[in-house]
């Protein structure tokens, strides 16, 4: 046999060795030890012997040969034989074979091989044993070393829709050193933190965000334990506008890439209740009826207050790594924006705080909290993630609740309700209009 079959020979030898008893395993068969079942050796045939592969009826006419002559070059894990067709120089995998172990192919009369070998794998259809075949042609990519079953190689083709265009990779740089792909940012919100570090406004925003995180005692620097994954963090920048379109604030937010988390390992519950819009309107109507004042409170960096039940590690924020401790990670005590469990963690926290203040959760609407006062009045709180709408029969009681909340969280008191959930509330002489 020619040398080009050495690879097949080695594979076959290993296949046979794994099915023979060895001294090392006290004369047990390696495969038996591995899978607990004695393998059959009934199908073993002499390597390189001549065999006849059955041609299915569909592939031949009445008077053609019922079989093709091939050479056995190994076994396929599915239980089929690997056959080599010396005429077409193709490898086939087939079950429907009659092997003649006494005969061999006369290799000497073989013509020279062309350097480019065309081969096709013919796999038996696993559901149909009669050998219904499906073949696809592959061009061998290895020209010097002629190993017959070379790895299939796929020709890469650019999509047809791009043929009319000049295609460059996304990060390609032209001769002047500029990025070729350059998108103009709509309201100049930077995406890349490197360019951000140059501008003062954004830098200040980032420092403010980090201070907020530190104040909340959100994390501590630790070494990453073995077998624990860390979650990357990134900066997100946002220009906040006033209702009239003026720039009111530059905001930088450190977010974790929560999509890297796995359910059950890194988090369990995700959803948090909010007040329904109907309820917000209902509360507004009630407040109007009794001429109560509506107040709007906003919790600063609300999600950073939610204590985490799961252990989560995040990497250090870009641009603010601590020198000498670059390899350490932050262990989170409280949630970070972007974490899957952040909303529920925050909701649990505020639920607990409101309960301590003495405000009860409404049993049919989880975003609403009611406090019953001793004089028969009420204080109502609508909770929409980090926005709170507070109203009540007595202004002093409402103020008390506000003070208590401010002790717990860092809050901005937005005064009387004017802009809630993107809707503007205008107080006129005798009514409130929402639009």
């Amino acid at each position: 046999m020619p040398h080009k079959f050495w690879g097949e020979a080695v594979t076959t030898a290993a296949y046979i060795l794994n099915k023979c008893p060895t001294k090392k395993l006290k004369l047990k068969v390696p495969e038996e030890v591995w899978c607990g079942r004695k393998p059959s050796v009934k199908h073993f045939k002499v390597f390189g012997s001549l065999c006849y592969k059955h041609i299915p009826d569909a592939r031949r006419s009445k008077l053609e040969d019922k079989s093709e002559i091939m050479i056995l070059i190994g076994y396929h894990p599915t239980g089929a034989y690997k056959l080599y067709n010396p005429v077409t120089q193709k490898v086939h995998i087939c079950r429907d074979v009659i092997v003649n172990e006494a005969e061999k192919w006369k290799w000497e009369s073989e013509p020279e091989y062309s350097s480019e070998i065309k081969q096709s794998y013919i796999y038996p259809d696993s559901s149909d044993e009669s050998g219904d075949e499906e073949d696809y042609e592959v061009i061998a990519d290895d020209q010097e070393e002629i190993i017959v079953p070379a790895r299939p190689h796929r020709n890469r083709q650019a999509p047809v829709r791009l043929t009319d265009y000049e295609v460059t990779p996304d990060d390609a740089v032209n001769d002047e050193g500029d990025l070729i792909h350059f998108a103009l940012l709509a309201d100049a919100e930077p995406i890349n933190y490197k360019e951000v570090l140059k501008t003062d406004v954004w830098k200040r925003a980032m420092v403010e965000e980090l201070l907020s995180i530190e104040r909340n005692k959100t994390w501590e620097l630790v070494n990453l334990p073995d077998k624990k994954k860390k979650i990357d963090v990134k900066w997100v920048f946002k220009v906040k506008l006033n209702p009239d379109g003026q720039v009111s604030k530059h905001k930088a937010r450190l977010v974790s890439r929560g999509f890297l988390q796995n359910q059950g390992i890194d988090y369990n519950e995700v959803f948090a209740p909010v007040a329904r819009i109907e309820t917000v309107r209902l509360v507004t109507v009630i407040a109007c009826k009794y001429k109560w004042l509506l107040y709007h409170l906003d919790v600063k960096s609300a999600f950073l207050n939610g204590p985490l039940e799961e252990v989560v590690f995040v990497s250090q924020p870009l641009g603010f790594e601590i020198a000498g401790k670059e390899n350490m990670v932050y262990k989170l005590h409280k949630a970070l924006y972007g974490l899957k469990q952040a909303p529920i963690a925050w909701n649990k926290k505020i639920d607990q705080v409101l309960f301590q203040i003495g405000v009860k959760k409404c049993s049919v609407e989880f975003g609403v909290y009611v406090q019953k006062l001793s004089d028969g009045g009420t204080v109502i709180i609508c909770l929409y993630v980090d926005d709170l709408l507070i109203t009540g029969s007595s202004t002093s009681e409402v103020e008390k609740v506000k003070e208590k909340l401010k002790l717990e969280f860092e809050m901005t008191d937005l005064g009387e309700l004017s802009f809630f959930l993107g809707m503007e509330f205008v107080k006129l002489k005798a009514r409130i209009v929402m639009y």
Partner: protein
Amino acid sequence: MESCNTVSNPSETNSKLDECIKEEKVDSTMFKQIVGSLRYLCNSRPDICYSVSIISKFMHDPRKSHLIVAKRILRYIKGTIDFGLLFPYGAQSEVNELIGYSDSYWCGDLTDRRSTSGYVFKFNDAAISWCTKKQPVTALSSCEAEYIARTFATCQALWLDSVMKELKCEVIKPPTLKIDNKSAINLAKNPISHGRSKHIETRFHFIREQVTNGMIELHYCPIELQLADGFTKAVKLDRFEFLRKELGVLDVMQL
């Protein structure tokens, strides 16, 4: 769109839309953005609720005529940009009352012939909750469609009632539901299995139970005073303006 002419109602009277498969496709991302924004606007503008529900049926495969309808809503919004929902101050009456209006439009959808149900709830004369929805089953008669619409409204009424109880803002009377179809009221009040209603699914008989328990009251109201009318069909301009006023959607600048 900034320099477009305004229109005075969001959708053409009696216009009907189907899938328009033969027309050319439009940018579906933009269409979805428009619908999404309009849906949020529905939170404070009940008057466009029906029109938005029409175009949101075609979000998966928007065509040119769908976009035209969507743009008409935008033109309407432009003309009524200063409109808002009114919450009247002070107590007109001592008792809190919750009144619901429910209506349906039989065979409103051209594609699968299902009916549209709509309801609106007014609490102390301010609209607080509204909805337009295609019914999940095909109704065989307008009475049946009304009956199904009623059931959805009842569910909402009971929920609102329980929220108000929690808010210590007791509604003395049970919530009332106003309907413009007498046979549907009778169907809910008497447990008679009429030949033409015996097939109605059991879950829609929920309302019958609630009426018997006294959780909700059904009242007849003439079609002219049916406020939920605008939530189930595209109505004529004068009617539309009347309904809009009744819902409390008014021009802030004129107040």
